């Protein structure tokens, strides 16, 4: 038995039926532990005060904003190579979640930036890249909704996602070139010199865990909805042609 078997829409519906409750559970557990611990049981930062606690929304949402696009890229490639409908529909379902995560990251960033840097917005490379990513998401979603034939839409949006990814990376590089920036370094890294102290770090991991499963849950629900829409359409087509 191969994993690709679940690329069949009907089998995927059955499987996701079983998996979905666990995903919901994991995201509730991760988010409640991470956010409660983070908001109420961590000390105030000696420089940033309690403002630092917005990190528990900002970092995970920023992480998921990028991962969602990456997931869409992988799903697009799978659709173009193997023509599995579930893959294309998962990419379609991930886009609105990704754009929301991008927006959350931008808004929480502005709320954090105001007291820290004294400004809601700065044309810093990271902030600018996220704004550009936001525009990429909007274009991708708009293209999906502009095309009637679902297979054509899947093909075109997949190609846009691939070309867009190349240009998104290029933009990231270009933006660095253009301005050196205000944003602190990465909050999470594998280096020994961590940027975030341990007290803040542990609840952050829970929060990220929760966000990952929140993302998976939303994408799964979205994909199931898309599959059902296509199923309805197929049933209607069959009836019409009889």
């Amino acid at each position, binding site marked *: 038995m191969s994993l690709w078997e679940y690329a069949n829409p009907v089998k995927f519906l059955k499987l996701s039926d079983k998996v979905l409750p666990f995903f919901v559970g994991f995201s509730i557990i991760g988010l409640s532990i991470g956010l409660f611990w983070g908001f109420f049981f961590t000390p105030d930062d000696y420089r940033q005060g309690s403002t630092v606690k917005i990190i528990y929304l900002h970092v995970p949402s920023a992480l998921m904003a990028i991962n969602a696009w990456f997931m869409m890229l992988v799903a697009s490639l799978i659709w173009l190579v193997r023509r599995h409908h579930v893959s294309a529909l998962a990419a379609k379902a991930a886009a609105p979640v990704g754009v929301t995560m991008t927006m959350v990251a931008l808004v929480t960033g502005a709320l954090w930036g105001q007291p820290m840097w004294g400004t809601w917005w700065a044309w810093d490379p990271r902030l600018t890249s996220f704004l550009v990513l936001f525009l990429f998401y909007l274009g991708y979603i708009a293209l999906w909704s502009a095309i009637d*034939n679902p297979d054509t839409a899947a093909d075109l949006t997949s190609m846009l996602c691939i070309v867009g990814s190349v240009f998104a990376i290029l933009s990231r590089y270009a933006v660095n070139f253009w301005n050196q920036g205000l944003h602190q370094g990465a909050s999470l890294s594998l280096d020994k010199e961590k940027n975030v102290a341990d007290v803040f770090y542990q609840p952050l991991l829970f929060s990220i865990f929760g966000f990952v499963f929140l993302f998976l849950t939303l994408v799964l629900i979205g994909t199931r909805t898309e599959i059902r829409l296509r199923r309805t359409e197929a049933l209607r*087509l*069959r009836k019409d042609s009889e």
Partner: protein
Amino acid sequence: MLLSVDNLSVSRGGVSLFEGLNFTLSSGQFISLTGGNGTGKTTLLRSIAGLQPIDKGEILIDTDNFIFAGDSNGIKTSLTVSENLRFWSAIFGGKEFEEALEVFHLTKFENRFAGKLSAGQKRRLSLARLMLADKAIWLLDEPTVSLDKKSMEEFSKILKNHLEAGGAAVVATHIDLGLKTHSSNINIEDYRTKSGNLNASAGAFL
């Protein structure tokens, strides 16, 4: 043999149109495609021309040896008749287009803008393209639309010359072009897919 279609099935908009279609086309042969609206004549021609993906079966054709003429004329209205033809002749390798002008009675309109031509004259200009290409297989979708009786007779003469010179043609048409020899007819409705049959893409969701 110039073209062979084997066990072909093609769909449009998720619904399978026809299935199990088989035929071959040899030098000098003419096949007319008939069938009601929406039965798949245009879709079949577009599949042979490589524009439309197929569901099942096989189409064997030398992709360098055919010319396709769809339902739209592909004429630039802001170019003159001869500029239109000069463009297509360059695309197909630079054959002289005076003869094509003559044969389709377009010589006196040579310097007129194509936008000023009547519908029938535009159609003739569009068909003149066929003579520039020097391809054996002609795939034509309703070529005689908006042609008058005289032009139609002349077109069937041109078609006959093409067949006698070793060419072949698949033509979707409702009009008898009067080609008695080497001509056969395929009625696509004979191959119509059983009702309620979706293609693989739409069927995957059932």
